[in-house]
């Protein structure tokens, strides 16, 4: 690691950069934090504004495609697959990318993992009244996820997996059987939703046989309005959301803190 640092700050690294073949992802990522200002200067002089504009557009596209599948975006992937030789002006490009997301799409690039530099796109536009989750319209899995998030929230934020499976069974979605709409339900819930960072599926220590519990994932925390979710649950049960005092307090706090960001 320290060897790279020395190499990078040398002035002849421009050729060195060009001759770099595939670094593994960790190295790629470490490279970003060690770029010198002279490298930046040289990079800016080397590429025309048109080329830089084009790169910004490519990064935006890349992120949009990943986000469409709700796959969190790794900074290393952006560097390896899109930015490549424009690494010297990585920061400038990313600043413009973030500005574009805000000004054109009303989206925000949020770092959910500062250590590994992983991002997701969240919606800056307020969710419409009556729509507590900001997901693709018409996606049947939204409903499924939503039910699970509701149960977890109402039960205080963490629940044993059995509760999820039992709730779904009551709705005639059996994780043991192949479902018409969702296919392998267990896989969707424990793999797909977890990968997309909507849920966390964690082993409970010292359990024999092994038991798991569910929590909200980082993306759910950022995207889903707990207040709107509580309102929806209220409608479902014909109750005032405020009747669940603890949940209401938590939901209100979450709402005000997210408004501050």
């Amino acid at each position, binding site marked *: 690691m320290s060897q790279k640092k020395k190499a990078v700050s040398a002035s002849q690294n421009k050729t060195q950069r060009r001759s770099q073949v595939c670094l593994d992802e960790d190295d790629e990522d470490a490279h970003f934090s060690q770029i010198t200002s002279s490298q930046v200067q040289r990079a800016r002089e080397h590429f025309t504004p048109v080329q830089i504009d084009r790169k910004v557009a490519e990064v935006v596209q890349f992120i949009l495609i990943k986000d*469409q599948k709700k796959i969190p975006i790794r900074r290393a992937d952006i560097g390896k697959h899109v930015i490549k030789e424009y690494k010297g002006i990585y920061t400038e490009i990313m600043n413009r990318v973030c500005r574009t997301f805000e000004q*054109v*799409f*009303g989206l925000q690039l949020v770092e959910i993992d500062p250590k590994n530099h992983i991002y997701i796109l969240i919606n800056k*536009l307020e969710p419409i009244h*009556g*729509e507590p989750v900001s997901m693709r*319209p018409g996606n049947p899995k939204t409903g499924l996820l939503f039910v699970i998030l509701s149960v977890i929230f109402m039960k205080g934020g963490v629940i044993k997996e059995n509760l999820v499976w039992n709730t779904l069974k009551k709705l005639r979605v059996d994780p043991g059987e192949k479902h018409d709409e969702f296919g392998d339900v267990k896989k969707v819930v424990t793999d797909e939703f977890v990968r997309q960072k909507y849920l966390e599926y964690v082993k409970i220590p010292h359990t024999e046989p092994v038991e798991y519990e569910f929590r909200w994932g980082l993306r759910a925390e950022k995207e889903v309005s707990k207040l709107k979710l509580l309102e929806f649950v209220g409608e479902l049960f014909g109750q005032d959301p405020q009747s669940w005092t603890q949940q209401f307090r938590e939901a209100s706090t979450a709402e005000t803190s997210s408004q501050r960001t």
Partner: protein
Amino acid sequence: MSPPMGDSHKRFLQTMMSNGIISASQAAALHKHCCETHGAHYVADRLDDFINIINAHLQSLFMHIRKGMSEEDGLEYYALVNVTETDITRMASDYADNELELFRKTMDLIVDSESGSASSTDILNCADSLQTKKLKKKETEHVLSKFVQDKWLNEKDGEYTLSVRCIVEMEQYMRTIYQDLIKVCHVCHNIALQCQMCENPICGIKVHLPCVARYFRARSDPRCPECSEFWPHEIPEIPQSQSQSSQNLPSSSKENTAPTPSRRSRRS
């Protein structure tokens, strides 16, 4: 400089991104909904102006909201397209290589055909001779239903046609690879796959069914616009644009588009 995008424009764009393609009446309803949600100035018939502002900002991103006509129902649709694509790269992230190859072959069949459609039997035969990796019957059926679900193909009675989304998004690609082999509508000059043809052997112009309906409206003696020979085919009805009351029902149009944006404002 183009006026900046307001929240109403951003919401419209986000909805376009989620749906890929929406009908003109859905777009009009969405326009109203977005303006009202964000308290933006709303003028009913200025949808195209509204979209132009968005397109001005999308230009540097090589994206564009494009208007196109459906061959199935003659109605207009708005699709968010990627301008740089000279291949079917839009689909590349969603499908495996052999599935993409099957799609290209299906498109070949459709473009070559007179009816502008390909039968499932013919497509299954293609699946058996793919160069990348063969697809079995069940796999082919599954991929075809995915194509329909993702709105790239339409299916009716075992016959597959290119959807309006496919044609609007891939028109550039198709013109490039098929060149003169692809039929073009004499009336609207867009790609024509499902069309009627002048029977005069030295003429043979093609016209979309909805374009035929509009062009020959209420003419007792329809004649080819090019060679003036009698137009022997049945003249279809003029496509009715969706009325205000029916715009919540996506099934009222033959094209399978996503649920309408009014779903988002359930309570209002």
